[in-house]
Structures are given as structure tokens and as C-alpha cells.
């Protein structure tokens, strides 16, 4: 368990971390999210005893990191942003060095083999670290954090520099580790946090901007619900049909996803679940539903909303992106750009309708 109380780190007049408090329970995977320079790494460095805090305290399994650093550090496996690897050593030498450095008492050979197997570096075990790819270096760093089976793992951007396949592997591994260990993970890859973590803390400018479970965070911020459906059938008639379903506020069907098949964005009154009704009506008309999903705000939207909420420029740019993707609800934007978007879409729709009519 990690308890952080009023932790502050001041560099000159700048507060890199400003009075943050949180608790991470045993077996929890906590995600640390924040823009660059928000204080993620500084917080992690304070938790691991690399730097001291200006005020406040951090308790690692009840041990204060500043009072009893040796004892507290034994509880932690830390992977810093840049893995602390000695480039002139082989993986084998390095892991043995870490094993001795951490004064491990586990059976050496079996333990090192276990760790290497977990992060899949057995095939480079005898190679010099200097010659390894970034992905392998990252994994060797992760292996060194795992040595000694510390109950707490603190991982600072663990998937940086990995290829997509490796990223998935490492995520799965972290999830697996989260069953036995308490994990704090920082990342700027939002989908990663969403995929791996039970709980998210969003840090902005040294302060905690949000602290909640991933689902709650997503749910709370998405007030209105929106449904996205892909239906094979006559577009005009489908639009008409959907509009007749009680609870539908508006429907938008100008996204041709497959030849002749459109995606329909249906805005629904809050608290209304029209999915069953809609399904029955569509099937009754012999149309085929190819997809249906509730559109939830992604963590990315929440993140941007929390960290840059007032920044109009960014929200405008974001709504442009949304117009392209058009499958994510954008609650973060002010009404202005959204309206502009709607009006811009309207003529386009009309033109399309005309074209179709001509055909």
C-alpha cells in the first residue's frame, strides 16, 4: 500500500508537485496521467526515494521513505523513465548485479530465469546491453524492477519505444503483475492507461486534477448518451424510422462506412435506452444491423478536458479531428465550435441528398 500525504516538491519558486495526496491499495493498478512536465516523474522519484520532498510524506507499506529509506526501497521495484542500464554489461551480468544490489535472498538462478521469462528477454540473455534495441532495453529495465519480487512496482512510461506487439505483451504482463503487486504506472499513452489501470490519477501542473476509476471517470463526464449504429438498408427510410422512436433527439446519417452502408449517430434523451426498441423496429423492416455501440467519451477527451479545458484553440482543433473520426462524442468543446460544425455539415448533407435524388 502506498500512502501519499500532502507531497510537495519545490524547485526554486516553481512547485513541480503541489500538495498532492492519494492512496494506492494493495493489488491496485494506478495510472498516472498528465501532460509533459506535469510532475509525474517527480512524484515517482519522490516515492522511490531518488529525490526528497520539500514537504509532506510518502509511506510505502507503512514505511516512510525518508525516515527508513533502506527498508522502504526494498519494497519497491522502480523502472525510471530512462532505464538505468549499464551499456557495457551483458543482460546476464546486469541482472546479476541488480540481484546483488537489491540483496535478494530468492534462489538466484531460478528467480532470474523467471523474471527473464516474464519479460521475454531469455533470447538476449548473453548479449551486451549496448547492442540491444530500445524495446529490449526497456524490457531489461522492467526485468530489473521485477528482481526480488517487490510488492510495489513503480513504472515510469514502461512501454515507450516498444513496437505495437511488444506494447500489448507488456500491458498484458503489467495486468498480470497487478494481481500480485501494487502497481503505479505513468504514461502519456491514454489508451494504455484505459486498457491496464483500475484507477486513474490525472496530474496537471503539479496538482491532482482527477482521481477516480477509469469507468467512473468516463461515465461521469459523459452526460448525454449517444448511440452509433451501422445499418444496411435504405438510408432515407432508416433515418425516418429512427426519428419515430421515442426518446430520440436527433439522428445524423451522413457517414458512409462501407459502400451503400451508413453509420447513424443517434442522440438520445438522458436515461433513455432505446436499443431494444430500435432493434425490433429495424429487424421488422428486414434491414440488417451491422453494428451498434454506445458512444462513451474516451479517456483522451476527459484528459484534454481536464488539463486544457479552457484552451479554446485546442478544443477547436480537437473538434476538427472529431469531424473526421466522428465516432467520439465531444463534450469538452464549448458550444461555439460544435454549432459551427453542425452548420457546416448541414449543406453537405443537403447536397448529398440532392445527388441521391438525381440518381
Amino acid at each position, binding site marked *: 500500500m502506498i500512502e501519499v500525504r500532502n507531497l510537495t516538491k519545490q524547485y526554486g519558486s516553481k512547485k513541480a508537485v503541489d500538495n498532492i495526496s492519494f492512496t494506492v491499495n494493495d493489488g491496485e493498478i494506478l495510472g498516472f496521467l498528465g501532460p509533459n512536465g506535469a510532475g509525474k516523474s517527480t512524484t515517482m522519484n519522490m516515492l*522511490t526515494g531518488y529525490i526528497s520532498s520539500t514537504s509532506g510524506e510518502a509511506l510505502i507499506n507503512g514505511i516512510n521513505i525518508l525516515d527508513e529509506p533502506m527498508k522502504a526501497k526494498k519494497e519497491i521495484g522502480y523502472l525510471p523513465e530512462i532505464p538505468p542500464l549499464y551499456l557495457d554489461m551483458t543482460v546476464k*551480468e546486469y541482472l546479476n548485479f541488480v540481484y546483488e544490489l537489491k540483496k535478494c535472498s530468492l534462489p538466484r538462478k531460478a528467480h532470474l530465469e523467471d523474471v527473464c521469462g516474464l519479460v521475454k528477454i531469455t533470447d538476449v540473455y548473453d548479449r551486451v546491453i549496448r547492442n540491444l534495441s530500445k524495446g529490449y532495453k526497456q524490457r531489461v529495465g522492467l526485468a530489473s524492477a521485477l528482481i526480488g519480487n517487490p510488492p510495489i512496482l513503480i513504472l515510469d512510461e514502461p512501454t515507450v519505444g516498444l513496437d505495437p506487439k511488444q506494447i500489448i505483451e507488456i500491458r498484458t504482463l503489467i495486468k498480470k503483475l497487478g494481481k500480485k503487486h501494487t502497481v503505479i504506472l505513468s504514461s502519456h499513452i491514454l489508451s494504455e492507461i484505459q486498457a491496464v489501470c483500475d484507477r486513474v490519477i490525472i496530474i496537471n501542473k503539479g496538482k491532482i486534477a482527477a482521481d477516480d476509476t477509469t469507468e467512473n471517470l468516463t461515465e461521469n463526464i459523459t452526460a448525454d448518451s449517444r448511440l452509433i449504429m451501422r445499418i444496411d438498408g435504405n438510408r432515407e427510410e432508416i433515418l425516418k424510422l429512427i426519428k419515430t422512436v421515442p426518446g430520440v433527439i436527433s439522428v445524423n446519417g451522413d457517414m458512409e462506412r462501407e459502400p451503400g452502408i451508413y453509420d447513424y449517430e443517434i442522440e438520445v434523451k438522458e436515461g433513455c435506452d432505446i436499443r431494444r426498441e430500435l432493434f425490433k423496429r429495424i429487424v421488422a423492416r428486414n434491414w440488417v444491423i451491422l453494428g451498434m455501440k454506445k458512444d462513451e467519451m474516451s479517456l483522451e477527451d476527459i484528459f484534454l478536458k481536464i488539463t486544457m479545458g479552457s484552451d479554446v484553440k485546442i478544443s477547436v482543433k480537437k473538434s476538427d479531428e472529431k469531424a473526421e473520426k466522428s465516432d467520439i462524442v465531444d463534450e469538452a468543446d464549448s458550444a461555439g465550435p460544435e454549432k459551427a460544425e453542425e452548420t457546416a455539415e448541414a449543406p453537405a448533407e443537403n447536397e448529398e441528398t440532392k445527388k441521391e435524388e438525381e440518381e
Partner: protein
Amino acid sequence: MGAIFKREMKAYFTSPIAYIFITAFFLYTGNYFVNINMAYGSTDTTYIFTSVFTIMMILIPLMTMRLFSEEKKQRTDQGLLTAPVSLGGIVAGKFFAALCVFLCAISVYIPILVVLHTLAGTLEWATIFGTITALILLGASFISIGIFVSSLTESQIVAAIVSFVIIMFFYMLDLLAGNVSNEFLSSIMKGLAFYTRYTEFASGIFNIGSIVYFLSAIFIFNFLTVRVLEKRRWAD
């Protein structure tokens, strides 16, 4: 400490540093041995022991420059400082590794002394052991200075040059003292000079005060290194 000592030893001996250091030492001392002892048939060991001061001044900073500056540059210090090891243990590990390489280098005296002993039949062993003790302590002092400077910078070159300048300064104190008219100041300067203290041993004077002086220098500079590492954590 053990892990760090082992890793530094490995680093010294898997890279060319230790070999170059030891070879240079052997060549330098061997040269004096051949050209003075062998050429003139002398069993006087004073010269082969005192001449070594110069090459130590140049080579030891080159040997220690890497120890902390490289860690800082490669960010590997983060691994050390977040591991359950004390700062003193980290410094001690590096200090003893460098000292070991230095001991390997001065093992050059073993064959030299064996040869001289067989040729001359007898040697002034008391003086020789006194000198070797002083030599080891002198080397250890230089190493502590080198490690201390290395902990202050990320650049190996800067570490080497600054360590050299500091050691040079302690060496020159002796010469500078001659130009100082104030007797009190001059005596302090002479007291701090490495060279005089060391050469005394070679000429057969075993000065306990000098032993204490070298030990203090080793302790102070290693202590300062620990403080530097500690201070960095508290930086604000």
C-alpha cells in the same frame, strides 16, 4: 557495496582502462628501474618510489573520472539511489574498486624488489614497507579526490582535468610555500603538501603524522562525495 565493487571491477577490466593504467605504470616504473638501478648497479629504491608520484598525478584522475560522472550522464545513478544501498556503500564500492586497480598497478614493485633482493642480497625492508604503505595511502587519497570531483560533474573530461588540477595544487603547495614570507602560512602549506610527506617515507622516515594526514584526506574526500550525492537528492 559488494555488488557495486564487483561491477566496477568488471567495468575496469572489460574496458581497456585498467590494462592501459597498469601497463603505463609498469612501463614508467620499469624504465626508471632499468635506467637507474640496473644501469648503475644501485640498490637504492628511493628514486623508483618517488618518481612514480608524477605518473600517479596524471593517471589516477583518468582512472576515476568515469566513476560518478558517467552514472549521472547515463542516468544509471537512478538505479543505484533507488536500490536498498546506503550512499556510503555506493561510494565505498567505487573507491575500493579503483584502489584495487591501483594495487594491481603497483604490483610492479614485486618483481623489481625480487630482482634487487637477489642481486644485492639485502635491502632496507623497513624503509620499503613504510614507503609502500605511504604509496598506497597516497594513491587512495588521489582516488578519493578523483571520485569526489567525478561526483560533481556529468563530463568525464571535466572530472579528469579538475581532479588533476586539485592534485597538482596539493603537489605545488610545497614549492609555493617557499615564496610565502609568512612563516605560519608557509608551514600550513608545507603541512598540506602531498609530495614532501610522501618522499619522507622513501628516504626512510616513517612519520605517523603523515599516515594520519593521508587517512584524513581519504576520509574527507569520500565523505564529501557522500554529501554531494545526498545534496543532489535535496536539490531545490
